[in-house]
């Protein structure tokens, strides 16, 4: 007797809704063991985590602010993965966008109205170019895209460090970070006395725009067709290489916008700690959203909530803040397994030879 996975003919609606919830619960149960190890109460820790994420206007805004870059990187990865361009390089593309924004934002003499549009455009282009490089390497030289995008993250990171420790070093502070961008280049604050900036709104709007692009335009159709079956797409007359290239630029540009938001709305400069791995988290968010660009929004808010909530939890219960990383990784594993059961079912079969 053994267990086998069988494809389902169709998925009942209640499974589609209950399985992700179940996955989430399983994650929390699995991680509660770690909380016990830290000598804290499981209920208290999770309550503190929830309160830290949603408990007050301030906390909720912090969660949204943290979600903004994750929405952008999640979109970047979702778009790229749809075309089976395995872009693991959102981290580097984010940094490229951030550096472009910091460069433009610190230029004196530009018309005041032009700062924000220019930063957005240049940030998009910078991120897009940094993704175009591995796309060309893949299409022309058959370099594996996973490896190339991954390696280029480190190249961009050290490039940024070299800049902020050298030519871009802030003469005022003397620390290895770039000079602040001008006041006129900062994203306006949307809610008085909070850090809720324009970038958060832009992230939501972009998600809707990308969703429209993916579902309602020929380019979106081409991207999905190439991802589902490149050979069939080529037979159907689609310029596969060009579609992959455009997808890569679009994906990199979206990741670049995450960087623009962090510079223009939050830090007003670039420094080593600009991104705590938003590019990598974007991969997980895109997968949790099942590469659905609208689903990226709740997935990003969920991850941001865990990250902000974990800080409060750590302060009040003494559980190390890194629990957030474990919860995030574990939730991905649980969600993957849960989603599997929406398309497959588990059957017990007799021991006949197959």
């Amino acid at each position, binding site marked *: 007797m053994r267990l086998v996975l069988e494809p389902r003919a169709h998925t009942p609606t209640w499974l589609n809704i209950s399985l992700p919830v179940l996955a989430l619960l399983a994650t929390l149960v699995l991680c509660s063991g770690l909380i016990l190890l830290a000598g804290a109460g499981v209920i208290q820790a999770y309550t503190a985590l929830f309160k830290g994420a949603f408990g007050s206007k301030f906390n909720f805004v912090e969660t949204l602010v943290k979600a903004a870059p994750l929405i952008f990187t999640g979109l970047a990865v979702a778009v790229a993965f749809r075309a089976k361009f395995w872009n693991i390089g959102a981290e580097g593309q984010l940094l490229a966008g951030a550096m472009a924004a910091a460069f433009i934002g610190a230029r004196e003499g530009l018309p005041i109205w032009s700062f924000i549009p220019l930063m957005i455009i240049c940030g998009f282009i910078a991120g897009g170019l940094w993704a175009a490089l591995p796309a060309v390497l893949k299409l022309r*030289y058959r370099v594996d895209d*996973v*490896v190339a995008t991954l390696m280029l993250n480190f190249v961009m990171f*050290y490039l940024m*460090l070299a800049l902020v420790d050298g030519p871009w070093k802030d003469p005022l502070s003397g620390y290895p970070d770039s000079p602040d961008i001008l006041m006129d280049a900062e994203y306006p604050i949307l809610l008085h006395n909070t850090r809720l900036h324009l970038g958060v709104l832009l992230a939501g709007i972009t998600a809707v725009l990308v969703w429209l692009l993916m579902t309602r335009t020929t380019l979106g159709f081409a991207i999905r067709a190439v991802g589902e079956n490149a050979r069939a797409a080529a037979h159907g007359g689609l310029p596969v290489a060009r579609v992959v290239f455009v997808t890569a630029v679009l994906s990199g540009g979206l990741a670049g916008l995450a960087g623009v938001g962090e510079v223009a709305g939050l830090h007003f400069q670039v420094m080593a700690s600009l991104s705590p791995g938003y590019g990598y988290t974007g*991969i997980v968010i895109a997968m949790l959203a099942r590469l659905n660009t609208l689903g990226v929004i709740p997935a990003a808010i969920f991850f941001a909530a865990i990250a902000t909530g974990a800080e409060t939890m750590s302060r009040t219960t003494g559980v190390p803040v*890194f629990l957030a990383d*474990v919860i*995030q990784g574990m939730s991905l594993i649980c969600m993957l397994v849960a989603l599997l059961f929406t398309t497959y079912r588990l059957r017990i079969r007799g021991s006949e030879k197959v």
Partner: protein
Amino acid sequence: MIRVAAPLLFATLGEMFSERGGVLNLGIEGIMLLGAMVGFSAAYFSGNLWIGIFTAALTGITFGALMGLLTVTLGLSQHVSGLSITMVCSGLAFYGYRLVFGQPSQPPNVEPFEALSVPLLSDIPFFGPVLFDHFALVYIGFLLVPLAAFLLYRTPWGLNLRTVGENPQAAASAGVRVAWVRYQALMISGALFGIGGAYFSLAQFNAFTFGVISGRGWVCIALVVLGRWDPWRCAVAALLFGAVDALQLRLQSSGVIDLPYQIFLMLPFLVTVVAMAVLARNARAPAALLIPYRREER
């Protein structure tokens, strides 16, 4: 150069085994990090470095098996499964370290391995100190290369592994248990990742820091491609990478070339990309890499 290459050699050979079996194991970075943490803690409390290495290997095997559960049994995406394992393992490593050691002002450290000179051979001028004056782990790493080549090319198990990675359907009809072979490959790779990671915290830095691996696991993925899934070529690739890494350290300290030191840190990653652009055209990955195998789909 040899000292820098040795830990990468463990991890690269591990990745080679799993990819030869048809599974891309992106858990490498996280498993190395967790191996470094667990190995360090075990060595710190037992006072025995070998116990540390052993525990790190066991940890790696556990997560290799988990990778098998996700990608082989359940047939989930290898990219995403690997990345999620990396996330969980790095999270666990940081969490565990904070739990065990708190936030010390001075990171705790262990007595590192002592260099083990091979008598007579290490007295040979130039080559002696370069080749025969290292930690025991370095020798083990390099002995692993012929061992891996033997396993892969000269044993029935190696033949099975290669067939499973190239054509799992054919392997299955020849009576090979595809899933089990892949599990074995993944557990071997996990063990080698764990040892490679522990090498950093036990032999190289003598302490665990959050940046102890910092991308070196990912480099090994590239080294496998450069080494074209062959143990000997992988060893050459690891040595070359070690040479570039050693060179950048030398250039940095010599001050001959006046560049910011970050440029040198970038060099190994840049060289890897360039080398892949030059060499990857001829590389041919195992045919069944990334493709889950299900019996029904025959």
